[in-house]
């Protein structure tokens, strides 16, 4: 039996990496990928807890989180494509019209 804290630590590490990635990278696509890392860390937590409690609610939450992630990606990539058409750039520090 793997202790629950192992899962917690794993998800913490992944969350942290995603967090740092968001702060560190300038390519908007990689930033979004880092956000996906964060969401996955969350999902690991939920599933681990769900198994621990023998309670399906956590897995349901993961299901919804997945749905939301998919929706977010659709909107986000649409924004990126529209922006790329307008600006031909997707690095966030190349957006100069508004101060970042």
């Amino acid at each position: 039996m793997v202790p629950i804290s192992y899962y917690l630590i794993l998800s913490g590490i992944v969350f942290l990496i995603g967090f740092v990635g968001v702060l560190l990278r300038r390519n908007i696509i990689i930033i979004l990928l880092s956000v996906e890392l964060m969401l996955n860390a969350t999902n690991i937590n939920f599933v681990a807890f769900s198994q621990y409690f023998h309670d399906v609610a956590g897995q349901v939450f993961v299901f919804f989180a997945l749905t939301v992630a998919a929706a977010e990606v659709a909107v986000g990539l649409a924004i990126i494509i529209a922006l790329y058409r307008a600006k031909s750039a997707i690095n966030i520090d190349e957006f100069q019209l508004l101060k970042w």
Partner: protein
Amino acid sequence: MSAYGADLLALLPELIIVVTACLVIALDPITPASRRDLLAWLSVGALVICLGITIGQINSVNARVSAFSELVVVDAYARFWKILLCSVAGLTILTSLPYLKAERIHLGEYYGFILLALSGMMVMVSGVDLLTIYLGTELMSLSLYVMTGLNRSKPRSLEAAAKYFVLGAFSSGILLYGISLLYGLAGSTKLASIASAIGSRGADDPLVLIATILVAVGFGFKIAAVPFHMWTPDVYQGAPTSVTAFMAVAAKAASFAAFMRVFVEGLGGLKADWSLLFLLISVVTLVLGNVVAIVQTNIKRMLAYSSIAHAGYALIGFVAAGRGIGLSGGTPGLASIMIYLAIYSFMTLGAFAVIGMLRKGGVEGEEIEDFTGLAKRQPLAAFLMLIFMTSLAGIPPTAGFIGKFYVFMAAVEADLAWLAALALVFAVVSAYYYMRVVMVMYMRDPSPSSVAPPHLVASPTLSFVLACAVAGVILFGLYPNPLVSFALQSVLTLK
């Protein structure tokens, strides 16, 4: 079918809004461009009906009515916000009508998105499970991302959408991680069980603290509290003005509502910890929001920083609620936030409506300089702006003062007189930049170089919105009792 009859009835307003949203989106392709107004009127009609139903529920339902296996409740607290949000959404639609035409982005989907965002907010304010609150937040945010990027011919709008999206996704990731930790603590995402789990585990568990901080950060992004405010100015400036108004008012109000419910109902056991946290946040927010607003030249950007600052004021009420002693000790603090945000909605909406009206006249009315000599050209518009600016600065007899008054009263009651004093000092700072707008409008002559500024004609809808906003600002400024007592009654249902 019948099993959910009662649940559906309790959530009738949401249902109507969702159905109308779908209807608007479905009708949009078959509506000729010249008749798109009808979609707006359809949305407004639905909102009016919802408002009626929600107000009607006040008398018939006084307790908490749980629906859908206790994932959402309909209580007075939720109803307060629903009434506020419905009114704001309706007024926003009426503001948008002329504005969108002027910007040439009059799309039928826009109204659908407003309604969908509104339904997300209503889910947020009535959710008592972190799942529903999270989903409501996402529904709201996604609609707002799209609405921000609505004006695709302008790269600025798209940039704003991109920034809003990146930081929004980031923040919801953080929020979700916090939620997952809370789930791990309580074994359920219901606020009630989280509260009981915290009660049994004790507040000094580091995991509890981390989860609390993460959730607070997640919500901090949504309410644009410093240091999670960086998206606000850009997004407010880049988004179409009517969207900005909606974002600044409704999104903030709904986020605050969910925020309060989560922290009071779910994490109430950690009052001492989070009130300290929010104390810090609110002080930083006040300082930064007010100081940075001074140097802005774009009025939307200035209002963005001002909205950050207003979040700081509202947070004071939250700190006071956290310091509250006893069972319902936090009541005045929470009520003060509700009052504050209700009033803030009216004045901000009014200010943005005036900005939107300037755009209609062909003037790119976003730089503060564009308001030069407005009093000479448009005395009435300038006077309305004066009232809104005064109210935002919190000067009596406008409603802005009442909002601040109750917040500070709560703060002083919670032995935070120094915080109130600090906040008031920054209210003076804020008065500087609000009064600068007034100064530009009234005390500078229109620059001779600009060729005969067009005569602005407010459309009937815009006039109605302005009239409502002014009426709200003045009436609540002179006679706030109905609002205050309503907020106080509503907040009592927050367990």
